[in-house]
């Protein structure tokens, strides 16, 4: 995974990388690690970079979400360069899932902004973000249980390939007659090795297969950035290995943000790791840097470790 990231990361990304590699003393130099410094910095970069190619596939600026008194996500600014495999870790209640909800648009932020590919998507609904290349897999698998495996994938393919459909086609033409959708569906099913089970209802799949289907749905939307919410939760060690290998394989060209409780797994697969604590960004850096970070150990590894 790491060689891939290094080869894809653009100039800006490399910059950030060097900063991060400096390890624990990055806070005074690195944009994205220091919460207060970032807001001003981010605003200028948004203006200058929005129409040029942004090195960051996904970026948040001062992202904040309050639930009454509780600040679930607090002034969070992260930037993920294209192609990076980033993990988001933190104790329970650190704000990981809320961060996902804010990035995908399931929740709207109390303050702050979200950028996809340099474009401000803060005001866009969930569906529009998907069309801009953002995909999400869920912690609890939410495939369409009553529909066939094939239909699950086909719907995802239709979502991105069917945007040009004329009204009469959308209303009256049989779904089976759209070649590109059928092709992508079959290709994706092959990729995740679910083709043999394509005509079974999704809810009949075993747990591991259902997670693969979840991945297939993500893949079929042709994403640039993929948010993975505990993709291996509840799996055996072997299943976990297989799933991570599959993710590495099928999502090789994507920028990935992973939420995961299994620290060993995170250390193993991530290019960089962001640690959240009480809604705030505690540290961001390479797995080695994070493992050696004292504040992280204090707040997370030494404290509540699941």
């Amino acid at each position, binding site marked *: 995974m790491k060689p891939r990231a290094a080869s894809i990361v653009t100039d800006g990304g490399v910059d950030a990388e060097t900063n991060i590699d400096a390890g624990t003393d990055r806070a005074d130099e690195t944009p994205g690690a220091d919460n207060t410094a970032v807001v001003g910095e981010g605003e200028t970069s948004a203006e200058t970079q929005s129409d040029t190619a942004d090195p960051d596939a996904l970026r948040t600026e001062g992202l904040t979400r309050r639930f009454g008194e509780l600040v679930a996500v607090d002034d969070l600014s992260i930037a993920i360069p294209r192609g990076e495999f980033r993990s988001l870790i933190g104790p329970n209640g650190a704000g990981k899932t809320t961060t996902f909800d804010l990035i995908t648009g399931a929740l709207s932020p109390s303050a702050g902004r979200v950028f996809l590919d340099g474009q401000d998507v803060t005001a866009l*609904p969930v*569906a529009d973000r998907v069309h801009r290349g953002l995909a999400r897999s869920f912690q609890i698998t939410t495939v369409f249980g009553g529909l066939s495996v094939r239909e699950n994938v*086909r719907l995802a393919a239709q*979502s991105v390939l069917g945007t040009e459909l004329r009204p009469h086609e959308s209303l009256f033409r049989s779904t089976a007659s759209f070649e590109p959708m059928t092709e992508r569906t079959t290709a994706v099913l092959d990729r995740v090795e679910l083709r043999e089970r394509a005509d079974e209802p999704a809810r009949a799949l075993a747990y591991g297969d259902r997670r693969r289907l979840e991945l297939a749905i993500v893949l079929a939307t042709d994403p640039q950035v993929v948010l993975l919410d505990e993709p291996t939760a509840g799996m055996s060690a072997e299943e976990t290995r297989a799933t991570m290998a599959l993710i590495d394989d099928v999502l090789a060209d994507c920028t990935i943000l992973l939420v995961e409780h299994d620290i060993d797994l995170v250390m193993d697969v991530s290019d960089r790791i962001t640690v959240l604590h009480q809604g705030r960004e505690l540290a961001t850096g390479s797995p080695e840097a994070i493992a050696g970070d004292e504040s992280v150990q204090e707040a997370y590894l030494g404290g509540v470790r699941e």
Partner: protein
Amino acid sequence: MAGAALAEQLLNGLTIGVVYVLIAAGLSIIFGVMDVINFVHGELFALGAYFAFALAAPFGGAGFWVALVVSPLLVGAIGMAIERLTIRPLYDRNPLYHILLTFGLVLVVADLVTIVWGRQGLPFSPPPALSGPISIFGFTYATYNYFIVGSGALLALLAWYVLTRTRFGLIVRAGAQDREMVRDLGIDIDRYYTLVFGFGAALAGIAGVVLGAYQGIDPSMGSSVIIPAFVIVVLGGLGSFRGAVVGGLGVGILQSLTRVYVPFFEGLVIYLLMIAVLLVRPTGLFGDPEWNADAETDAGLLVGRAGGLLDARTRYRLGAACVALLALVPLGAGRLYSPFVVTLLTDVLIWALFALSLDFVMGYAGLVSLGHAMFYGIGAYAAVLSLLHVDGSAPLALVVAVAVAAALAWVVGYLSIRVSGVYFAMITLAFAQLLYNLVFKFDFTGGSDGLFGVDPYYGLGGVGVRLQEIQVGLGAVQITGDGLFYYVVLACVVGGYLLARRVMGAPFGSVLRAIRESETRTSFIGYDVTTYKRRAFVASGALAGLSGGLFALGEGFVAPSLLYWLRSGEVIVMTVLGGMGTLYGPMVGAGVYVTFADLVSSDVAYWRLVLGSVFVLFVVFVPRGLVSLPATLVSTLDRGRGGPGSATDARADGGSLARTEGDEDEEKESGSASEATR
């Protein structure tokens, strides 16, 4: 003087308002704790009044006081029995099934009441001590009103105390938050649920006693109070006790003031208020926004297992055979069987189209519309108005019906679809009731008489034929005007079905199905769920409008009852009875329901009791409807034999459409010339 009049109206409003609070508080607690939308609450309220009537008589002067204590206890006991026997098996299901079940119970209880106490209103008055006026500070007013306000306020306070300050209330509120967690703590939460249901029912019972003595007792008191009660609960926020109190008093006073000062808005104002509140605050005034989040994760709707036993080719042939058979029916009318068969089947087909339109949104997009009769009714009104004032052309009238209903569906959908789940069901109900009350108000809609005297011709621009003037003769076979109209209806219904099927097989329909499975997931793969739902709603409204238009053409009249909420309930019953999410299932359901209601109503006076009981059994035991019955039976049998085949891959013959055909045959043979009561 004006001040005194105003004060009197305020007190009148307060009196009714307090009674509303008692009813709405029970409804709201039951929803808050168990997520049950309890339609039968109105009937429990009525039972309170009837029990009071029965209890008071033997006790003379003290009768009222005995009734006030005993009657609510009886109603509470009945409520507990209802919870125990019918609602408990359904807790894991989507709240829609609670609506359906309690709707079925409404039919049962209402008919039981009329069986025991008759259809006439009954006299029941407050005890002598409370009758007559009383003067306070020179202001004279009825003692009994003061009694209602005082005792009602006391009871509301008591209920609030029990819920917030006692151990019972604590457990109940905890159970509302997380049922499993409370159970894991070793508390028998089921028992508490039963008690809560009984408690809510008893509150309704008290309201029944008190209001019965105020306004008299009649069989319709339940169905007339339930809709305002729902409005109050939704207005205040489902599950919010404070909302029920504020909503109840507010609605009581508002109604009372409107009646006197702006009579035009009587009957409209509460629906307008509810719609306005829901548009601004989609969870009601004091509603907890988290309820909505909860609703999202609820168990889905149980759709019919369509064609589980037959392959596509066989099903296609069976469908074609059914249509062919239906097409032959008018040929034998009057010779092989009574011409009434044609009339009945016309009725069945129109209902089938209506049920199909509901299935389009409910069975596919998961939108439970409790006010679908508004599109049917508006279609019928639009058709008649077009025939009377524009042109006598029947095709034109149908086009107008479809267009007007679609436009209404667009407006209602645009405003309603942003609210989700149960609130959506309630807001559609409010729109339908608003429209129902509106047609009484205007001359051009004919007020309570409705409109009649249409004479449609089949053609355009004055050129065409009148069906009743044609006799098509082929030797011995004569087809009358009724027979020709039957063909018009059959063509529309088959056309509507094929169209709907086509749409469901196309990208648009596939997204609707995805929405029904999981709305969140659908938006996360990139579909704008709201837009899809709105479009589906418009299409559904158009189909319902077509069916209403056909009704108007066939019957030649329209009346406000076409828009009444019970009609919306009936079409939901048909849809679920047949098996929603299959398109043809609801049509089969319509056939069975209409035929059954017709046959039974001609022989049994209390057909709603029979129908309601059958429906309750269906909701509990066969929620996937008639069309999935064969597949369910086969899979049960397989399991019994230890066979490997599940319902989905079993390939046995016989099958669901054989059953369907049987039903249709039944309809054809039902030639007894009874009066169609709907």
